[in-house]
């Protein structure tokens, strides 16, 4: 039920304060509540920046409620509704596997299994023993063309298979940085994997 209160106090630091002011200014006076999701995101990013763990402790939600002048429960409602906000601490790398139909058809089960075996996590929602990874099942990430998808923190890793996942996660485990986001097979954005098949020149040959 209640979030693990490991953080007793929370206040926006100077970087966040600037972003908060900008977000709140987007809405007319009296409608500051509209900025609640932006503020939750700012708080989560501040936690990632300062503690290395991207989550929103209850203290942060209370601080946001005070800042916006609303009842804390209104902030709790928002924070728990959106899966993008972590109300419990997560690992340094938050692995969000899409298992919706297009990804599943393209082999998301393999991705999930590979993530499990590479990190030692038994089931969704858990964090690996080394605290590096949290595995979450998410609904459609909206990048079905390049299915299957794994979102790590803010970035999408596309066109995955078990082998590439393991390589990716092994790299992270040994302290490597996150590789560039996007397709892992070198595809340009979401262009066809093979040759150009549409919008061909008049002679029918790809350029």
């Amino acid at each position: 039920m209640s979030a693990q209160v490991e953080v007793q106090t929370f206040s926006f630091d100077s970087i966040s304060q600037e972003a908060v002011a900008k977000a709140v200014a987007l809405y007319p006076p009296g409608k500051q509540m509209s900025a609640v999701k932006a503020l939750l995101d700012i708080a989560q990013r501040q936690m990632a920046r300062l503690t290395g763990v991207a989550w929103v402790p209850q203290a942060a939600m209370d601080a946001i409620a005070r800042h916006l002048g609303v009842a804390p429960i209104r902030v709790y409602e928002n924070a728990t509704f959106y899966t993008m906000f972590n109300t419990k601490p997560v690992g340094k790398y938050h692995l969000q596997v899409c298992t919706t139909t297009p990804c599943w058809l393209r082999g998301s089960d393999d991705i999930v299994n590979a993530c499990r075996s590479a990190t030692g996590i038994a089931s969704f929602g858990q964090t690996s023993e080394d605290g590096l990874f949290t595995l979450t099942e998410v609904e459609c990430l909206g990048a079905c063309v390049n299915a299957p998808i794994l979102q790590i923190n803010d970035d999408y890793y596309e066109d995955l298979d078990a082998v590439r996942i393991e390589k990716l996660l092994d790299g992270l485990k040994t302290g490597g940085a996150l590789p560039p986001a996007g397709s892992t097979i070198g595809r340009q954005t979401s262009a066809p994997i093979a040759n150009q098949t549409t919008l061909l020149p008049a002679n029918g040959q790809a350029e």
Partner: protein
Amino acid sequence: MCLVEIEKMPPRPQVACGMPVSDGMVVHTDTEMVRKGRRGVMEFLLINHPLDCPICDQGGECDLQDEAVSYGRDYSRYDEAKRAVAQPDWGPLVKATMTRCIHCTRCVRFTAEVAGVAELGATFRGESTQIGTYVQKALSSELSGNIIDLCPVGALTSKPYAFTARPWELRKTDSIDVLDAVGANIRVDARGAEVLRILPRINDEVNEEWLGDKSRFSVDGLKRRRLDRPWLRENGKLRPASWDEVFEVITARMKSVAPGRLGAIAGDQCDVESLLALKQFFTALGSPNIDCRQDGAVFDSSCRSFYLFNSTIAGIDEADALLIIGSNPRHEAPVLNARIRKRWLAGGFTAGLIGMPNQLTYPVEQVGAGSGAIKALLEGTAPFANILAAAKKPVIILGAGMLARPDGAAIHSAAWQLALKYNMLNAEWHGFNVLHHAAARVGALDIGFVPGEAGKATVQMLSGGVDVLWLQAADELDIAAIGKETFVIYQGHHGDAGAARADVILPGCAYTEKDGTYVNTEGRVQYSAMAVKPPGDAREDWRIIRALSAYMGYALPYDTLSELRAHLAVLYPIFSVENGFHRFAGTSITAPAGDMTAMDDAPLTAVFPNYYQTDSISRASPTMAACIAAHVPAAAEAAE
């Protein structure tokens, strides 16, 4: 569940609650299509609803159960796992079994909109949606019990009443609440000799459909610490006695002292009948020493509008500016406070407060803490003066607690002058309101239960001012100040402060045990009804006085309640009409007597330090004690 079929609409069930009414619309509420649609919705509602009706307190008065009787299938096609959630703790009053919740969010809306304490919300989403507080906490609203009534299923039930009774076993009696002066309309549910619960009745003029937690949950105080037989003090100790014995002792005592040395003080929950009997009894004895203001208030009550909530409770809906003087309506009349909040939500309304800041459920402009602020408003120098001056229908709410201050009469008069200055008194509008917190007070003032000529008021009766002091269920006065030699007769229903000091105890009735007349703070005459018999040898209060008067040879001129009421109606015409009520215009040119300059600048502190225990019934209630422990930890510690 509100699916209907509407002619000339697409041939499918329409959602009635979301369909604007239009001209010439023909709506069918019971066709094959409607029944089929509702059966479908019912099946969805029951997907996650547990089948624990046999162990659920809502059984028998459950909306979902009723709908299932009409539209439920005879078996379930659902064989997946059902949703189940942990049982949260919402404090000592509301028992939340959220597995039964169907997510209608009525409780969320009530706490946020009516109670004004946004503590409930819908967290998580979809299948995982949970109605709750998210963080573990007790609901802090004084109106939290109403969400039990609002909940259509058994998700929110009464914690003290859990597993006590089924609704069809209960005897239901319409009555009036006396734990505050609003006079909320209630229904008393009893089984055998025991009152099991109290629910609000709808009266849009008074309590709408709400009831404060103290009024609702103090019922367990009605069967504890009761005085169920006469008691007599012998050698410093109380011993059980018979009615004859105590009458004999009282008669001997009362006849042995001069009439001017007899006195009577009435408590806060007395019915008008017993007060009239007591008044006439004392008049017959020749004593002018009677007072219904046990808090020691002395003010001009010669005119009814001086002490009433003249704008009326429903009149708050019309007001556009409010000045609260020395009151915390949230504690003194939570239902009325909800009304003020409703008015504030409607917009175009400003509230100001003179007194100690407190957490009301609407924004309040702090005008000042002491009577200096009243002076500033009279002179027009305070910023709030502009708001009052610009308002069309401004009101003042003067806390009755202020009248009990040494400078009560001065504040009374100054508040009246404020009303006069800011155009609150005219033919269409009477904006001078006294908010009482004692249910008996207005009725007692109406029948003139105040010192007669050269009579002694409460303060003079204490400290040995009288030799025989009759406490009519009066517990909230300074008992320690009663003179050591004073012979105290206590007539009441609870073994509280007054009974502890008494030399003779006459066991009377609590408000659920007698047919009584009460007048609420706006002057509305209402009737409580006997829901259960009084315990043991206890008798209806007016009968005790009538019996004693006959014993002493001054028999009062009525033998039955109807005779007494007829007598009352002749003497005081306001009681002659059923639910008698008169809304005053503010055209009276007289003002209450009182020297405004005598105001002292001590802060105007509201009268109740806490909401939950303010009278002998709520002090005897374990539920109210649990509320104190949950919400006012400091007071709970002090009590131990």
